[in-house]
């Protein structure tokens, strides 16, 4: 069992790295410098060279993630504030989000299976386009691993944020609503931050897409993911 001082130090290190990487990200606005990717990499490198194990980090981790549940509940607030935009084109928005979310989840599982990856990885890859707090829960409910799931979520968030806007333009997807939704469905919070730079409507749509996709996939995941993985 790590000492109180040690727990305090691991928390201090995590918070410090988060604040520094957040500064770098806000200054560069480059998706590759996203705080989760940067901080996690540095922490793992430090732990690797100092011989600190994840077991020793766990008490600090539990304290730091205590507010993740309430923070996830708080996602209802931006959704509520954007409800009027949502009602403008309710059917195209909801249908588009569910279609896109289902298409990407299915493609990811089937391709991961074809690549010969283990069931644990295939299951953890499923929620990779869902916002991290809910992807973690989905991976727990379906027999995946939360840490692996977060890695895929961050990869997808970063990749989609880098390539998304230009790929959408290349495919002649120019409607602001469609661009916002596509970014939210693919790259959750990171995609929302990226497309917000194009305009407030796109940003609001991405936020809606992120929330609705998370709710929709949560409802179908416990049956659909194991079924597809074991197909």
């Amino acid at each position, binding site marked *: 069992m790590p000492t109180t001082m040690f727990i305090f130090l691991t928390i201090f290190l*995590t918070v410090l*790295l988060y604040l520094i990487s957040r500064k770098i990200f806000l200054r560069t606005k480059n998706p590759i410098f996203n*705080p*989760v990717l940067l901080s*996690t990499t540095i922490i*793992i490198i430090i*732990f690797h060279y100092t011989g600190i194990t994840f077991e020793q980090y766990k008490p*600090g*981790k539990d304290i*730091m*993630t205590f*507010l*993740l*549940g309430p*923070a*996830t*509940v*708080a996602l*209802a607030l*931006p*959704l*509520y504030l954007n409800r009027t935009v949502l009602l403008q*084109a309710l059917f195209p*928005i909801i249908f*588009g989000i569910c279609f*896109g979310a289902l*298409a990407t989840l299915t493609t990811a599982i089937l*391709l991961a299976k074809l*690549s010969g*990856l283990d069931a644990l*990885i295939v299951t953890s*890859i499923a929620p990779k386009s869902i916002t*991290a*707090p*809910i992807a973690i*829960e989905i991976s*727990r*409910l379906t027999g995946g691993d*939360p840490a*692996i799931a*977060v890695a*895929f979520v*961050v*990869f997808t968030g970063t*990749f*989609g944020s880098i390539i998304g806007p230009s790929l*959408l333009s290349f*495919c002649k*997807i*120019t*409607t602001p609503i*469609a661009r916002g939704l*596509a*970014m939210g*469905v*693919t*790259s959750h*919070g990171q995609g929302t931050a990226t497309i917000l730079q194009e305009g407030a409507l796109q940003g609001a749509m991405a936020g809606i*897409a992120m929330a609705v996709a998370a709710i929709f996939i949560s409802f179908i995941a*416990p049956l659909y993911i194991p079924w597809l993985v074991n197909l």
Partner: protein
Amino acid sequence: MHNLLKTVGQIFLLWLIYFISTWIVEFFHLPIPGSVLGMLLLFLLLSGGIIKEEWLALGANPLLKHLSFFFIPIAVGLMEWGKLFTEKGHLLFLPLVISALVALIATGIVVQSLIKSRKQEGGSN
């Protein structure tokens, strides 16, 4: 000081909704995350005017602003899977990249064509 107390109180209210939702999910063996039920519950309470947005904004904003902080300690858990990633990392690339492209294009095209067809219908009326 007054604002700090308010913020803490509002975060407590969010935590209470989370706590109740997690309890409901466990009690009824619902196959959905407690946090998702909590989010839906809060959305309904806001829409029904039972909870006012002002009662939560102060507590919710810092949590939402720093949401990504919470993923760092969880992602550090990856260090336990180092071997898996060095051995199989290259196999992950294709499924992740292609499924992301599918998400962007599928959502974008479906929404854009639905909106355009609706506008055309509206124009002919």
